């Protein structure tokens, strides 16, 4: 796969329309990403606002729920883009449920937030749709871990359900190693998910799904690290997605109910399989500048005010 000329969808005329956009950030939002999104959004939308989720007030009475920030009703925006992580569940689920019942366009839904932040559930949901993934298991009791190993074999990757950005992920090579880790995991009353370990080529492909459009990025992992997450170091470069990649990425996003997301793929037995679907992907600013953010904003602008609710 050699990088070739990538063609992006054309931006509509740089002409501000009377449209408004609200970006809801995770309470652990990255300032540089927010600044970039706001900068791009202000070029298109006449009114743009960013609110971290922990600053939102949710006011509920019978038959009516409002999202308020500094006395402003947040449901009046034409489009709302929630960028939330698994750390925002307490307010995130309530906020997304409220948005779903508003007139604002939202590129992601509540169920997608719940499923994509649960690695096993994502894998299960996709496999039911015939989307290729990796054999995974989910169980509660370490006592029955051997049955899970029967499915994946050694080595396997153990993930905690709340794990993200490559953290909370352990590579297990033997029964002894598994037993000592399970003991610690059980103390924290975590749910245990295991996944068959696939030895990749030292790289994976992240597909940014933006509606019907896909931008593919090849990511190389940091030397000595088997995880390809850019947040842990490594590098990234644009590639032309193959029809197989396009199909998997688009079908995965559709199966989970997301117009904006990223789908991470890895090559396994000469086929592409889904590793993870991200509800709140980073824009790879270091390697791709503002390109991803521009495409997100273009899409949100085109969709805003067209909600069929």
């Amino acid at each position, binding site marked *: 796969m050699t990088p070739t000329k990538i063609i992006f969808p054309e931006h509509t005329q740089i002409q501000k329309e009377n449209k408004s956009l609200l970006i809801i950030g995770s309470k652990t939002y990255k300032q540089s990403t927010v600044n970039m999104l706001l900068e791009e959004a202000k070029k298109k939308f006449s009114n743009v606002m960013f609110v971290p989720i922990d600053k939102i007030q949710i006011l509920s009475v019978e038959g009516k729920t409002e999202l308020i920030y500094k006395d402003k009703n947040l449901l009046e925006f034409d489009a709302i883009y929630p960028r939330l992580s698994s750390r925002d569940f307490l307010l995130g689920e309530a906020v997304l*449920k409220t948005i779903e019942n508003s007139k604002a366009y939202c590129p992601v839904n509540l169920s997608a937030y719940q499923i994509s932040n649960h690695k096993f559930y994502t894998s299960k949901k996709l496999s039911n749709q015939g989307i290729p993934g990796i054999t995974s298991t989910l169980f509660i009791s370490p006592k029955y871990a051997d049955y899970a190993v029967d499915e994946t074999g050694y080595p396997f990757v153990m993930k905690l359900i709340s794990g993200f950005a490559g953290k909370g992920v352990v590579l297990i090579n033997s029964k002894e190693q598994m037993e000592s880790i399970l003991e610690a995991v059980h103390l924290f009353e975590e749910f245990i998910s295991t996944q068959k370990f696939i030895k990749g080529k030292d790289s994976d492909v992240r597909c940014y799904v933006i509606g019907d459009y896909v931008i593919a990025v090849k990511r190389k992992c940091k030397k000595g690290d088997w995880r390809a997450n850019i947040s842990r170091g490594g590098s990234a470069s644009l590639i032309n997605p193959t029809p197989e990649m396009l199909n998997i990425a688009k079908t995965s996003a559709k199966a989970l109910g997301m117009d904006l997301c990223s789908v991470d793929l890895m090559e396994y037995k000469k086929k592409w399989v889904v590793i993870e679907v991200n509800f709140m992907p980073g824009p790879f600013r270091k390697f791709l500048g503002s390109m991803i953010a521009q495409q997100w904003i273009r899409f949100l602008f085109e969709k805003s005010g067209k909600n069929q609710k």
Partner: protein
Amino acid sequence: MDILILAEKKKNAEMFVSAIKAKGHNATYIRLSKIILVSKQNESLIKSKGEELAPYDAVFIQARTTLAPFIEPLLDQLESEGCYTTSKKGSYYIGMNEPYQFVTLSVAKAPIPKSITSGNAKNIEHLSKKLTYPLLAKSFIGRTVQQAIVVNNARALNSYIKSIKTEIDGFMLRQFSKADIISSVMIGKKIFSVKRKFTDGITAEISEGKIYKVSESETKTIFSAAKACGYDIARVDLCKGKIVKVDPIIPWTDFNKICSERIEDYVADFLIEQAIQNEGKRKVKYDFLGLRKIFGKTILGWLFK
């Protein structure tokens, strides 16, 4: 009919297994911790101690909502196999997160006390001006309640907030009524209720309550609450006609004692009825001459995988 009771402990399942068997149907108990969910290239499976779960017509899950990250994919799988479940997909996520549950009830136009949730303690006093005291103040870490206290005025609320030393993820303030609680168990269309007295700032336990006949409007509210949260069998608590709790976990023996009933018989009838209605919807894997079912659990079981 084949009915499965999935519970955390055997004692939570035995009464239902016996009641169903007494009515001439098959009932099995499996401990929830024995279940392993498996996702493969093109299929997902539910296994118990390495064996694929046999097809059941109905499944009754008795598990705490804190197990939602495990129960939700399980419910999704059972639903995709066409199996009837008393709790619907999504119901455990709703039960696990109180602010989300109240938004869900509000969206469904079910009567709830006015409430405000925020992730920040700084403006909680300012927010309280939108509500009327007394208030039930709750703090959360993740989706778990850390502390709950009734405050009668702004000063009490302020001192409560100041007393919180750990980092929290959110606050919920809810208008609180100093009144009796009506705790009900709903099984399909049947409701059993207990009135719990509120005296000297304390609500009596269910075991200390008295049998109560719910009004037409209360009945409607109980059904709408359980339906909005995705349960066919649930506990619903009302205070002055407003919903204060919806939970799939029910203290069965307390309700039986106060209501002088064997509520498990109603549960059994309901499960059998649902299983019969659901017959034919179950997506059973191809089973030539029923051999898979006969030999599936024997030493020859591997031949039919």
